[in-house]
């Protein structure tokens, strides 16, 4: 397959990966009752929309001109700033863990989605010969890595207590 065709296929897949994240975080935002959780999931959904926007412009640019210039435009560390102790949910959320079935599921699925995105971008960065595209994919992998760390930190903070509170519910 032509390098250009291959690249356009990879970018389309990347847009799908971002869309999955966006759809899921919107659902999580809709479903959680925790105010901070709502805000953070909305912010994660917004990040995925931004990624989609960058990828769509990459797709157009490559399709029409066969080239792309990548500008790093965002400080990707923003998500964890000052929130390392409980990065997704409020501190009070811990007191309602026996009803947190959806939120705990959202953390696990979010982790799975982010791991999947990181693998996808790392593999795609290796596959691509274009320097600018490589840089973009590595940048996106790093950004998704920040999401992953926030989700994992939150899960670690709650997992043990959730198990004790929820036991075998819903089985």
């Amino acid at each position, binding site marked *: 397959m032509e390098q250009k065709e291959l690249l356009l296929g990879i970018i389309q897949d990347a847009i*799908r990966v971002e*869309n*999955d994240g*966006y*759809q*899921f975080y919107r*659902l999580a935002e809709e*479903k959680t009752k925790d105010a901070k959780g709502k805000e953070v999931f909305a912010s994660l959904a917004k990040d995925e929309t931004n990624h989609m926007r960058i990828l769509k412009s990459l797709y157009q640019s490559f399709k029409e001109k066969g080239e792309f210039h990548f500008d790093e435009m965002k400080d990707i560390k923003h998500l964890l700033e000052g929130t390392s102790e409980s990065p997704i949910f409020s501190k009070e959320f811990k007191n309602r863990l026996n009803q947190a*079935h*959806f939120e*705990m*599921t959202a953390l*696990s*699925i979010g982790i*799975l*989605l982010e791991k*999947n995105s990181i693998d996808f971008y790392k593999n795609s960065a290796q596959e691509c010969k274009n320097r600018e595209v490589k840089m973009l994919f590595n940048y996106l992998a790093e950004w998704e890595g920040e999401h992953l760390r926030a989700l994992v930190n939150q899960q670690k903070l709650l997992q043990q207590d959730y*198990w004790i509170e929820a036991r*075998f*519910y*819903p*089985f």
Partner: protein
Amino acid sequence: MDNKRVSPRREMMLEKGTQLLSVLKQAIKAESEGYYFYQMAGEKSMDPNAKEIFNSLAQDELDHGSVLKGLYHAIIKKSEFKFDRRRHHRSKSKSGSPGTIFSVKFKQRIKQNNFAISAIRIAQMLEKDAIRFYSQHAKKSKHPELKSLFNFLVKWETDHLWALVKQESLLKKEQ
């Protein structure tokens, strides 16, 4: 040479020592996440076929969780665990038959329904993760009943995965 064979019961007790309970906890957690995800996908889906299938997938995960919970309690109480494959060999027809998740009408308005496509792709990720987990522990386990249970779950989750992959490919053709 010592020809003494370790009894299945003893083998199970040995596996208990090698973190079987922790494996089961992880498995129960994964089934619970599958259940909640399919339940949400069913709630959010506008298409009646999709709703029904997502609910059926949720029910499957609920069944898996119950079997695993039974095993967990059997180990805690030090009683024998017997896995009855035939008893759990039910309801695979709906969720396990590929190409039946969405109705024709849904396919016609697929471009407006981004959530359902993402739900199918996320579900594939969950199923793949479960298959990887059960395969790994089916290989590790020395107890025949456990091996049988984990392999059974691998097969069942693979049926789910196959139905979801097939559906995604059908929907891609419609786009």
